[in-house]
């Protein structure tokens, strides 16, 4: 069945089984999971008066953060998949409501790559850019898929600009410091893996 024609109502068990597989089955599981509970988006729009884009982003983040937990067994099926997902989604919604209320939205976002480059002197920028151009992007992508779900997830959130504090809240780490330590370890691990192939 082509991925784009997946019916939204797939049994949770099938979705979970697909997510525990690799490759195309995992991808199918991700899309099944997304489609099945996509109505959360409308609920959030109604309940919290969110814009559709915001509600979508929260829902997509929910699914993205839920997938590694399902894969690594953190989701222990003590509640239904729907209840568990909704709890994550609800927490994210409340976070956004708080941010909107206190007008702190995006304050905690870390510096983007373009900002980093703009802040560097021309000479330093060209050195770094040249080295980045020589980086084997495909190999990094491949290694990113090999470092484990937790690392991939934490790096993904970091890359999207979330602060360690926000990542801690989303991925249920105890503190932002734990996130930072884990994130740097993941980067180091990734680098070691990368270096093995580039030597």
């Amino acid at each position, binding site marked *: 069945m082509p991925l*784009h024609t997946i019916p939204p109502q797939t049994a949770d068990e099938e979705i979970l089984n697909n997510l525990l597989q690799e490759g195309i089955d995992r991808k199918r599981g991700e899309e099944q999971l997304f489609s099945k509970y996509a109505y959360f988006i409308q609920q959030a729009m*109604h309940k919290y008066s969110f814009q559709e884009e915001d509600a979508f*982003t929260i829902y997509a983040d929910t699914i*993205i953060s839920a997938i590694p937990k399902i894969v690594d067994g953190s989701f222990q099926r003590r509640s239904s998949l729907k209840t568990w997902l909704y709890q994550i989604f609800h927490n994210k919604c409340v976070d956004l409501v708080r941010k909107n209320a206190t007008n702190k939205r995006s304050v905690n976002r870390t510096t983007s790559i373009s900002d*980093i480059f703009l802040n560097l*002197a021309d000479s330093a920028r060209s050195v770094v850019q040249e080295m980045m151009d020589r980086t084997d*992007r495909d190999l990094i992508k491949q290694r990113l898929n090999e470092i484990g779900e937790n690392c991939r997830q934490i790096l993904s959130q970091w890359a999207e600009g979330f602060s360690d504090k926000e990542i801690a809240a989303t991925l249920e780490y105890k503190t932002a410091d734990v996130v*930072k330590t884990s994130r740097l370890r993941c*980067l180091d691990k990734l680098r070691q893996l990368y270096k093995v192939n580039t030597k």
Partner: protein
Amino acid sequence: MDNLDYMDSYFNSEASLAKKVEFEKKIAEDPAFAEELAFYLSVKQLAREQSEEKKKRFKELYEQYKQEGHSTRQITLVRKFWPYLAAAAIIAGIFFGMHVFFKPASPQQLADKYVQEHFQTLGVTMGDKEDSLQAGLRWYNEGRLNEALVQFESIANRDASSFEAKKYLGIVYLRLEQYDKAISCFLQLEKYTQLYANPGKLYLALTLLKRNQPGDKQQAKDLLQQVLQFDLEGKETAKQLLNKW
């Protein structure tokens, strides 16, 4: 790891000019550091691209989800108008209930009611001696309709002038839902014009309403109007029935 920590701290805090100069100097003078920084930034860029790719895929799925009839607009519209829809449903329910439970009785329903109230039992003459008509009435009141029927039929055949036998025979036929025979009896009863009180026309109208064949209703109406017009037996009942027309 130390370099990563250093980079991370540099990017995640407001760097002073001195720190910035130091950082740039390290890039220029330490190729290993520059390389590590390039890796750090490349990972950040690629991880972001991957995440955005996944979100883009989800976005496409979401658009498809909406197109498949899970339209946001549709849902929000329903929610927006939900109080009005609920109110409309309640009002419709009330009207439906009134229509079903408080609907004005039709002439047929009134005819049913009349038969129920007036023909359930018939008046018996009190006396020491019971004649055949009284025996028929007693059986009728005991619910032995077939025996009463035989009795009244026998009297009517024996004595053509017995308008009471005709009347009771017609009533038994009406109770037994043998409307054609009841009509025949009441037509004959109607002809007893010398009677002070002849309910023939009223009973005939009631039987026609009960039979309810094409034309019966109109015929019953005509009969009831005659009852009213000529001030016949059952005038009040005729008036009530005509009011429901």
